[in-house]
């Protein structure tokens, strides 16, 4: 165990200067214009074990906004120009079912990366990613079940629903790159460690679709790329 740790530390020490040398960053902010749809309240009264976990009313999360017209939960990633990455990160990403909601609402992962699905609730869930390009599956997960382990092989934005609780909804963003970010509550994102080159940056919002911008990185500069989506009232 210790030798493994030392090895990992050594590896990190060797790799980190290589990455930071001449590595640029793309950062920016996601905003919207217009009036976004009002998010609807979610009635969980049929599932008391979940309802009691929420002290404030729970709403849908198709459009999550912040102050100054910013948009959260937007997936920003390098859709073209990224150095080839044949292998997925070894670390798994985790998707948690808690209080009859998906946390996070939008989860990005690399193709082939391990996905762990956790049920932290006292009720059964049935996770059902509605994949069209990947293989579609659904798995039942009673309370206390150990995390499920899955992976997706192809790039796709997969809507996820729970077959038991109709209001539970989320997304998997399965990408061919590990250069991705999900905009924070104040709409910001950052894609670090980009070697010099020409890139296409794509921003995806579950209700508003995708937008792309091209950017050229030279040296270790930080380029600002902002996206603005047109909001729909309904």
């Amino acid at each position, binding site marked *: 165990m210790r030798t493994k740790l030392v090895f990992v530390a050594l590896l990190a020490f060797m790799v980190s200067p290589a990455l930071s040398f001449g590595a640029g960053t793309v950062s920016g902010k996601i905003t919207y214009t217009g009036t976004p*749809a*009002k998010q*609807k*309240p*979610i*009635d*969980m*009264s*049929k*599932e008391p074990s979940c309802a009691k976990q929420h002290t404030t*009313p729970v709403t*849908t999360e*198709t459009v999550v906004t912040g102050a100054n017209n910013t948009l959260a939960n937007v997936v920003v990633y390098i859709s073209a120009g990224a150095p080839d990455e044949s292998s997925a990160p070894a670390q798994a990403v985790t998707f948690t079912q808690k209080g009859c909601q998906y946390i996070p609402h939008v989860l990005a992962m690399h193709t082939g990366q391990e996905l762990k699905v956790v049920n932290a609730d006292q*009720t*059964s869930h*049935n996770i059902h990613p509605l994949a069209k390009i990947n293989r579609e599956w659904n798995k*039942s997960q009673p309370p206390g079940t150990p995390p499920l382990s899955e992976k997706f092989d192809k790039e796709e934005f997969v*809507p996820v*629903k729970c*077959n*038991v*609780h*109709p*209001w539970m*909804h*989320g997304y998997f963003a399965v990408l061919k790159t590990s250069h991705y970010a999900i905009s924070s509550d104040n709409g910001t994102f950052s894609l670090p460690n980009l070697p010099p080159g020409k890139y296409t940056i794509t921003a995806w919002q*579950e*209700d508003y679709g995708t937008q792309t911008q091209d950017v050229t990185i030279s040296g270790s500069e930080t380029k600002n790329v902002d996206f603005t989506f047109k909001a*729909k*009232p*309904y």
Partner: protein
Amino acid sequence: MGKLFAVIVFVIALLSAIPIITHSWFGSGISFALPEDISTHGHAIDDQLSDTMVEAGLSFLAAQFVLAFFVWKFSNRQANAEIKTFPGGAKGLVIAALVLVGTEMLALGILGQKAWAAVYFTPAKPDAIQVQAQAGQFAFYFRYPGADGKFGALHPDKIDEGNSNFFGLDPANDVDSRDDIVTGELAIPINREVHLMMHAKDVGHSFYVRELRIQQDFVPGLDLSVHFTATKVGKYEIVCTQLCGLGHYNMKAYLNVLSQEDFDAWMKQKASEQ
């Protein structure tokens, strides 16, 4: 040995009748009685249920006692004793039994038709509150027409559960649907008739509220309706009683009977949330 068996049959019949008559299991809190009726039509259903129980119970006891009597009477029959035909044949007895059972069934049917027709063969009053109920795996959702009193049209292709659009409304193009109120609980005012229009989103389901004495299936492809008036404020469970899939055990909602003022406030609150 045969006589002992006859006594056992007699005792079992008597014992099994006791919990039915007393509506509870001895020495425990298990009650078989229906909960208090909170509807205007429920007493007819309850009368019908007790009539059926009394008639079926008496027939059951009579049959068991006759069985025990024959077991007692013929328990000493020798193994090689001759089996005699019934004196004069059993034709008369069979006809009598058929007439008796037939009359009983017919009487129950004719009497019960009244209770049933009160809900199913009469239309709801014009001023009844209109509520639409949709059953889908594995939850009930309810829709009120909102301030304009009109339900927006349904577009199944617009159903988007992640966006709480369970009914498939199209508020972008359909003005009627914009003020429709969609909820997960069925709130109704006390002492006002409710016209519940029911449809299934996917498979067969059922709407059952014990206190209302209403149990009506949702059938895919059919628009069914029931109407009822609740007479007691309270929160009651609506359960699905038609096996509909993996989450069936968990498919429920609540019926919330409110005073008129509370109902108006509830409606206002829900309208502001839409």
